[in-house]
């Protein structure tokens, strides 16, 4: 048993905390750095993470230790908690004003997209509909998709980097948009979106999750295999291929052309 756990179980909270921090400080820093690149941000989030982990006599750590059965490694659970704290810290700290500064250098349309998607947390379709109904009535959905992709690329290159992926409500979607946005009209896109949802619903939950994680979230096949308990990446390739064939079949039956997907 780890020394910090023994100290915690003996009620020696200060000693438990010192030992815990001695062992996991570098992991906490690494997890925060994965989401945030700016030095000051990393230090501030680290301070917040320590404060949260130490709060209420190490309540979070005690609740973990007192669980009769542990489903995950402690260190993975710790990274999960640090991720939540990091995302919450950025949401709380940045708010509208600071996040707006991220978009200052963007062209007007991309800035508007940024405001709707990242600040107002609108879905991509909602963002398009609002822009189309307001300042850009001639903007086609194809053009919007290109601008949306460019917006994501622009903000992800900034100092906040990976954290923006977690702050956006539909963070996974844009990476799957066509590189050459020559897609359908807005109405067609909305209808296709519903058809797609329906087609995915028809898949078995595990197959749908394979598609969601491998195709839409773009996780490596090896990672998807590990997450879902599949033996290897080949199983992911095979099952996603079959699942996507089913999805295409459903969509084609509904009149959506292959080239529109």
């Amino acid at each position, binding site marked *: 048993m*780890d020394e910090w756990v023994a100290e915690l179980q003996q009620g020696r909270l200060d000693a438990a905390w010192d030992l815990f921090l001695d*062992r996991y400080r*570098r*992991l906490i820093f*690494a*997890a925060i*750095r*994965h989401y945030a690149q700016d030095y000051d941000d990393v230090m501030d989030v680290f301070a917040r993470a320590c404060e949260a982990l130490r709060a209420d006599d190490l309540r979070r750590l005690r609740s973990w230790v007192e669980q009769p059965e*542990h*489903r*995950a*490694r*402690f*260190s*993975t*659970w710790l*990274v*999960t*908690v640090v*991720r939540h704290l990091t995302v919450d810290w950025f949401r709380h700290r940045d708010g509208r004003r600071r996040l707006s500064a991220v978009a200052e250098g963007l062209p007007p349309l991309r800035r508007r997209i940024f405001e709707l998607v990242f600040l107002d947390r609108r*879905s*991509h*379709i*909602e963002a398009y509909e609002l822009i189309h109904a307001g300042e850009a009535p001639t903007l086609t959905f194809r053009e919007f*998709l290109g601008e949306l992709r460019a917006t994501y690329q622009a903000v992800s290159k900034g100092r906040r980097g*990976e954290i923006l992926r*977690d702050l956006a*409500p*539909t*963070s*996974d*979607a844009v990476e*799957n*948009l066509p590189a050459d946005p020559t*897609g359908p009209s807005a109405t067609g*896109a909305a209808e296709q*979106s519903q058809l*797609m949802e329906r087609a995915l*619903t028809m898949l078995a*939950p*595990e197959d*749908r*999750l394979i598609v*969601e*994680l491998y195709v839409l*979230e773009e*996780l490596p096949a090896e*990672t998807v295999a*590990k*997450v*879902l*308990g*599949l*033996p*290897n990446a080949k199983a*992911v390739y*095979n*099952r996603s291929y079959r699942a996507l064939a089913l999805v295409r079949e459903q969509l084609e039956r509904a009149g959506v052309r292959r080239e*529109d*997907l």
Partner: protein
Amino acid sequence: MLDTRVRSETVTPDCLQDDVIAAFAEGSLAPDLRASVLPHMATCVRCRGAVASLARALADPAVARELSVAPSGRRWYRIAVPLAAAAVLLLLLSSPGDDPSSGHRGPPPPPPATTPVLRSPIGVVAAVRDLRWSHVAGADRYRVTVFDATGGVVYAAEAPDTVIAFPDSVTLVAGASYLWKVDARTGFDRWATSELAEFRVAESRRR
């Protein structure tokens, strides 16, 4: 593929706890629990996003390096000092003629395995009555998983020992390939995973 579906990040009572999200991301979720939460994961963007985000973080080389590091030197020091003292004491108390095998002690024992080595079944087998693997130093629990050719879990169980009886209730198809692995729990926060092994049942009458 076009994916512009409207999504919601509302937390629902079905949303997964942190430890389940963590277990999902590291691939250690028990198969029965995984099966029970799959329908929610498939449709909940919040939980799915959290698992994907965490999986990306775990794959970050800097995070992975910290996850894999040994306990700090301070802990080793605390263990090593009493061990060294005990060794010195043993040397002082033992006389040169005490050991009947002195002179030739034979080759040193092999180092203890750090991951389980799968023993049987491997390759073509007549039947599968049990699953066997090697002991891992310090392991107090083993988790066995058998997959079919599509990657579906056909059997999963935990055992304190290095052998587990394969239940009659699980039917193995003759001629079909299966893969299996064993995870050994070697500490409060550590699991060691075996390589995958493949086997196939030759006879058609029995699993």
